[in-house]
């Protein structure tokens, strides 16, 4: 779905956000909405990075603690925590992040491959790195976040 376009000069917009001290971003086309934190209903027998489910206008939306998913400590939720609702394939999922920073406009040639030294988890979730104004922003591969759920379901 949000695979990088073959056309290297294709421009795309990204939404960047913070988890701890690091910056990440996702393709804006996958984002359905951004909403404030509301307490989630915990789900039994779920991996630690699933906070639970919330009501998104009548639909049951699972919330993924992106920090935990990426291997950081479990996020401390506060009133300033933000849920980015993204559509991955046919599913909607809310990503819990610390704060949304801004909207970036990049071309694909600005996307750098993550260096080899990065651990497996980083390499599997980070599609590439973007350098803007001496900031380093990691582009999240959304479609890689979820498939593990399918395996868990089996």
């Amino acid at each position, binding site marked *: 779905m949000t695979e990088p376009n073959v056309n290297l000069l294709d421009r795309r917009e990204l939404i960047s956000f913070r988890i701890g001290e690091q910056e990440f971003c996702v393709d804006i086309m996958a984002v359905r909405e951004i909403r404030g934190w509301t*307490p*989630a*209903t*915990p*789900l*039994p*027998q*779920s991996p630690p990075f*699933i906070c*639970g*489910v*919330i*009501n998104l*206008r*009548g*639909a*049951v*939306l*699972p919330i993924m603690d992106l920090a935990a998913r990426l291997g950081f400590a479990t996020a401390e939720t506060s009133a300033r925590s933000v849920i980015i609702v993204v559509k991955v394939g046919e*599913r*909607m*999922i809310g990503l819990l992040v610390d704060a949304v920073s801004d909207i970036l406009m990049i071309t694909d040639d600005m996307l750098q491959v993550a260096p080899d030294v990065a651990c497996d988890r980083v390499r599997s979730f980070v599609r590439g790195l973007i350098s803007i104004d001496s900031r380093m922003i990691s582009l999240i591969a959304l479609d890689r976040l979820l498939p593990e*759920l*399918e395996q*868990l*379901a089996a």
Partner: protein
Amino acid sequence: MDELEEIKATFFMECEELLADLENGLGAMESGSADGETINAVFRAVHSIKGGAGAFGLDPLVRFAHVFETLLDDVRSHKVEVTAELVRELLRAADILADHVQAAKSDGVADEARSADMAAVLESLSADGQSAAAVAHPAATPVVFAPIPSATADNMGGEFKPMTVSLMSFDEPAPVAASEPWTVTFRPKTELYRNANDPLLLLRELERLGPISVVIDEASLPLLQDLEPEAAYLAFTVTLDAPVQQTAILEVFEFVDGDCDVDVSGGVAAPVFDLAALLAAADAAPPIAEQGAAPAFAPMPVANIAPPPPPVVETAPPPVPEFSGALAASIKTPSPQQQQAKGNSAPEAQATIRVDPERIDRLIDLVGELVINQAMLAQRVIESGLASSSSVALGLDELEQLTRQIQDGVMAIRAQSVKSVFQRMPRLVREVANMTGKQVRLVTEGEATEVDKTVIERLGEPITHMLRNAIDHGLETPDERRAAGKPIEGTVRLVALHRGGRIVIEVSDDGRGINRKRVFSIAVEKELIAPDAVLTDEEIDNLIFLPGFSTASTVSDISGRGVGMDVVRRSVQALGGRISISSKPGEGSTFTLSLPLTLAVLDGMVVDVAGQTLVIPLTAIVESLRPKPEEVKGLGPQGAVLSVRDTFVPLVDIANALGFRAEKRLPSEGVVLLIEVEDGGRAALVADAIQGQRQVVIKSLESNYRQVEGIAAATILGDGRVALIVDVDALVAMRKRDTNRSPEPTLIAAE
């Protein structure tokens, strides 16, 4: 093109219904409860399928239907006697007809050899060789439109030879004699074409009754510029010279009934011929009225009636260059009466409508939102501290009632009778019976029982399995039955009924019942139970639902398709249903399947568990109670049981089972919900507190997430938060599994 496809889709949809009617009718014939009307209905069903199929050029289907129809016609006219043998063949033929329909639907090809064999059988059963001969060339002779010589005929281009009003043999009111030919005036309405019928096919049908000559009456045809391309303008007058009954002629038009005006006169038993008067009344417009009023209906040249106004001729477009101006003029002026007649022929209010199911689903979703919103509103009102007698609160009460009514109403729209599932079963039973060499009679009851569409869709598979099982494993072979002093033909009953807000499906057979010894030894052999386990008869019967259990010593073609009863049970449980079996040796077994009436809403008990709000399906709850400390007894290192009126029920702490709380709590500090699990056993669920009873809208967890063990689904409560709906059966099973080292005798120890 799309439109044609759409009509075709409608045709196939109707075929389904017609095949069901056919099946029902034949079923009635089989059981001997058929009357003349049943046989007519059977005939009509085949006839209608043939008619529709002809319109789409589905030749193999038409060919087979024709043979079938011919035989049925003979049955109907008592030329062929109804015997058990005949009905059996008819049922087989119905299956093949269904295959043909299926093949046509999927653009495939039905088994031609089988079809041809069947056709040959049907032919041999039909009244005489003549019908067989006719069968060989169905509709091979094209209809010849025999025009009546007329002054204007020569002027006409194109292939239809119009004649004013053709009443060839009724120049004078002839005395009705036995040899009198029939005159059939047939005026299709627009609906007839819209419903994908073709007059040509009807005319061919008439031709089957005897030699016909057809005259087209284009009197209503307007000028090309006024012509609506989809409207019906033509009428046909058919003269049929054959000694047939009037009903036989009317039956040709049976399935276009209401879509055309048909008038049959003359012939043997016709009343006094009054077509002239009829026409005179209908055509009051000057040119035709003149003619209609004429005492004798001598065909007269149209040109004599209205002289051609040249401008009209010029405006007539090229395709009909020789179109007679005179004719055009006379056609151009439809009489008020004709228009009136047209108005009357507007489609009558239909008893049923077809609606895209997606629209209803959307409506149900919306009503679900409405229910949630209404609950949220109610909660806010309570929170705001308004008195319950305040006008707002009262208005809210009314809103709640209305909401509930709307919900019920909408759910009722989507409700369907189980008939659509049941009617597929006779065929299955026949096939399985043939494969196993057993004689089986299927008795169905409660076909009108309604359930939500979401449930209907999931009923077919478990019923199929239960029936296969009943015939394959339950019923004995004819020899065994004879030896046991039973009727050779085994009976399998398929019953649907509503019970306690659920739909119950029972499949029972009068076979040998479950061989408990064998079931037990197999379960031991497969290490599903301990060799020294002490089980009640009921528990042994239900062993067949354990994964990996199959009693058939050889994996048979029918039941042993790699899908055991355990899979059926799991799929049923996933729907919030239960399945169980009871059996009496030598007398038979009964499978009982119970499912919620809908998978859209649920009545539940809202409870607090470790700070979470959970919903327990009300149907599972037997009673709720506050246990006294002395009623709780420890059993083994982990387990505990609750003493309820001298029986011991295992205690399951919901918070522990779902992992919301690790430490144990005394059950006497909370409330206990006594529940019934699917195998008839009981368990006591421990919760912290009960909030109350509520109807909740079921929301899938899987659509955005995945299935969670112990959780059936989710819902949204009045405060807008998501609450989880507990799957009690799974919860108890989980708990049993977790503590399966405990000395409790557990059935579901298998993993």
